[in-house]
C-alpha cells in the first residue's frame, strides 16, 4: 500500500506520484494537482475531512475521499 494525501500529517510534505484519473476531478488538476508537484498538508478538520492542502503554491481544501485517490511519496 502506498501513501496517499490522506495519510499525511500536519505540516508534512510529499510529491504527487499518480492518481486515479476517473476519480479525481479535472478542476483539481487545473489547480495544480499534477504528478511531480509538491503537496503540503496544512490542516485537517475533525475526522480528517475535509483536508486543507498547499499544492504547488495553491491553497485548497478537498474532501477525504478525493485525497485518498492521490498517491504521494513522502519527503524524508
Amino acid at each position, binding site marked *: 500500500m502506498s501513501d496517499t494525501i490522506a495519510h499525511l500529517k500536519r505540516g508534512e510534505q510529499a510529491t504527487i506520484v499518480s492518481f486515479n*484519473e*476517473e476519480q479525481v*476531478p*479535472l*478542476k*483539481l*488538476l*487545473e*489547480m*495544480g494537482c*499534477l504528478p511531480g508537484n509538491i503537496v503540503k498538508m*496544512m*490542516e485537517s*478538520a*475533525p*475526522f480528517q*475531512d*475535509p483536508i*486543507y492542502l498547499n499544492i*504547488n*503554491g*495553491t*491553497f*485548497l*481544501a*478537498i*474532501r477525504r475521499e*478525493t485525497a485518498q485517490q492521490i498517491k504521494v511519496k513522502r519527503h524524508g
Partner: protein
Amino acid sequence: MGKSINVSLIGNPNTGKTSLFNRLTGLNQKVGNYPGITVEKKEGICKLDRSLKAHILDLPGTYSLNTSSLDESVVVETLLNKNSKDYPDVAVVVSDIENLKRNLLLFTQIKDLEIPTILVINMADRMQRKAISVDIDLMERELNTRVVLVSARKNIGVDDLKKAISDYKNLQSVPCVNASSIDPEYFATLKKAYPKQSIYKLWLVITQDVNFGKIDRNRDLEDLKSSSFAVKSESDLKKMQHKETVVRYQFINGLLTKVLNVDKSQAKDLRTRLDRVLLHKVWGYLIFFVILLLIFQAIYDWSTYPMDWIDTFFAKASSWAQTSLPEGPFTDLISEGIIPGLGGIVIFIPQIAFLFLFIAILEESGYMSRVVFLMDHIMKKFGLSGKSVVPLVSGTACAIPAVMATRNIEDWKERLITILVVPFTTCSARLPVYLIIIALVIPEQEVWWIFNMQGLTLMLLYMLGFGAAIFSAWVLNRVLPIKRKAFFVMEMPAYKLPMLKNVGITVLEKTKSFVLGAGKIIMAISVILWLLASHGIGEQFTNAEEIIKEQYAGKDLSEEELTNKIASQQLEHSFIGYIGKGIEPAVRPLGYDWKIGIAIVSSFAAREVFVGTLATIYSVGSDEEETIKNRMKAEVNPILGGPLFNFASGISLLLFYAFAMQCMSTLAIVKRETNSWKWPAIQFTAMTVIAYFAALAAYQILK
C-alpha cells in the same frame, strides 16, 4: 454619444475581479440574471475617454474553460457565441500576482480562442511584502499580450488599464499554447472540417459536456456533436483534457521561471498562524460560535432600533394621510393599504443590511472559506455542504436575507435544497406567535429546578425547526432529480482586510435587489389583503356601525370600545371574514374556530400578523385588564365548550406555525432567486400540507 465596446472581465475566483469591476464602474453598475438561469449577471459602464465607453461585464469567477458548473458554463457560452450581444471586443483576464501560475492557465485558454486579450496582474501592492518581482516587458513579449500591473485596492494602474482598453484595435489575438499538440491527427481533421472556426473553440464545444451535463447553446455548431468528431469516448476526451492541462502548465512554468522572481526567505506567513487558531478543532468552532452570536445579536437586537423607527414612521405617515387627505376610498387605500404595505417592505431593510454587512466582511476577509471547511463534514451527511451553514443559521433571524445568502453556493442542487428548507428554521416573525400561545397553554412550571416549562417549549420549537430543515434537506437530496457536481474542491484564499468600498457596494446592492424584487410582490399582497379585510357586502357589513350602536345602546361603552366593536363586526362580515367562515370546516379538526382561521389566512402575508388580527377580531384595547392574552383565554370553543385555547389546540397551533410557509415575502424572494414560480409553489404546498397534518395529528391525539 460616442462609441461603446464590450469588455469582459474574466478570472479565477478571489483574484480581485469584483474589486476591479467596482473600480472601473463605481456605482454605475447593475446586477441581474442571465436569461433563464440563476447566475448573477453584473454589468457596468466605464467611460474610457471622450468618445469611447466600455460596457463591462463581470463574468463569474472560473478556474478554466472546462466547465463544471452553471457559473462556468456562462463564461464559456459568452466567449464561444460570436452572435451574443455580450461577446467581448476585449477580454480582460484578471490574475493575482501571488497565484500567477494557476491564474495563467485560464489566460492561455482565452488566448487560444483568439479574442483580443489584456492580462491584468492584480494585487501589485502585495509584491513588496511578499518579495515578488516580475518582468512585465519580457512577459508581454513572451505572451504576445498587453500586460498591466494593477492594484484594485490601492487604485494603482487602473488608468493604465483603461488606456490599454481604449487601444483595443491594437491588441494581439494570437494563441500562445498549441493545444493541438495533445493529439495532432485528431485536431488536423477537425480543422479540415471546420476551416473557418478557431480550433480551440471546436475543442471546447466537443468537451463541454464531459464534466458538466448541460446542453450547449451554440446553434451554429450543433451538428458537431452528432458528427464523426464525437467518436472519442468520454474517458478518452477526459484523458485528453488532462494532457492539455499538463501541456499548459509546462508552458506556464517555462514562462514564469523567466519573468517571475519570488524571494521565499522574505515571506512572512500570516495565513499559517491564523489558520492554526481559526481552524483549531476546539478554538476554531468556539470562535465561529462567538461570531455567530455577534451576528445574531446584530440582526435580532441592534436592528430593533431602526425597525422601531421605521414602524413608528409608517404608523405616523398612515395616520397623517388619514387625517390630512380628503376622506374617501382613495385615502383609505393609501393610508391602510399602501403605506402599511410599504412599511412591511422597508421594515426588513435593517435586518437584511446587517446580515449582508457581516457576510460581506466574512467573505472579503477570507474567513467564510474557513467556516465552510469547519462545517463541511457535518453537513455532508445531509446532502449539503459547509456552504449551507450561513444561510441556515441566518434563517433563525429572517428567511429573506437567508435565501439571498445562498448565492454563495455554487452547486445548484445544493443551493436549491438550502433555499427550500431555510423557511423551516424558526425566524423572528414566529416568535410573537409562539410567545403568546406558550403563555396561554403551557403551565409556568419549573422542571428539574432550573428549567422553566415555557422556556423549554420555546427551545424545543427552535430545535424542531432546525431538525425539520435538516431532515427535509436529507429527503430532498434523495428525491430531486438534479445532477450535482460530485466533488468538493475549494480554494482557501489568503486573509485580507476587507475593502470598505466592496463591502458597501455589496450591502447596497443586496438591499436594493430585495426592495425592488420582493418589494413589489409584498406590496401587492398587502393591498389585496387590506381590500379583502376592509370590504364586504350586505347589511351586516355596511351597517356595522348602526348595528353595534343599537346592540349596545343601553350599555355605557367608551368611544374606543365602540370603535373596536365596530371594527370587529366589520371584519367578521368582510370578504376575509367570509373566507374565514368558509375554511372553518377545514380548520375545525385542528381545534380552531373561524377567528383563528382568519388569523391564519391573514398571516399568510406574514406570520406576525396573527396576533394583530386576533387583536382586531377580539376587539381589545378597551379595559386595561383586557389584554389580548386574557381575551384569548376567555374564548370558548363553540362546539365542545371549554376554553378554545387549551393544551391540544395550542400545541396544534404551535406545530402549524412551526411548519407552515406563511410568509409572502419569503415566497417572493424564492421566486426571484430560483427564477420560477415552480419552486415557491412546491415549497408552499409541501410545507402547508406538513403543517396541516402535524397540527391535525397533535390535536386529535391530545384532545
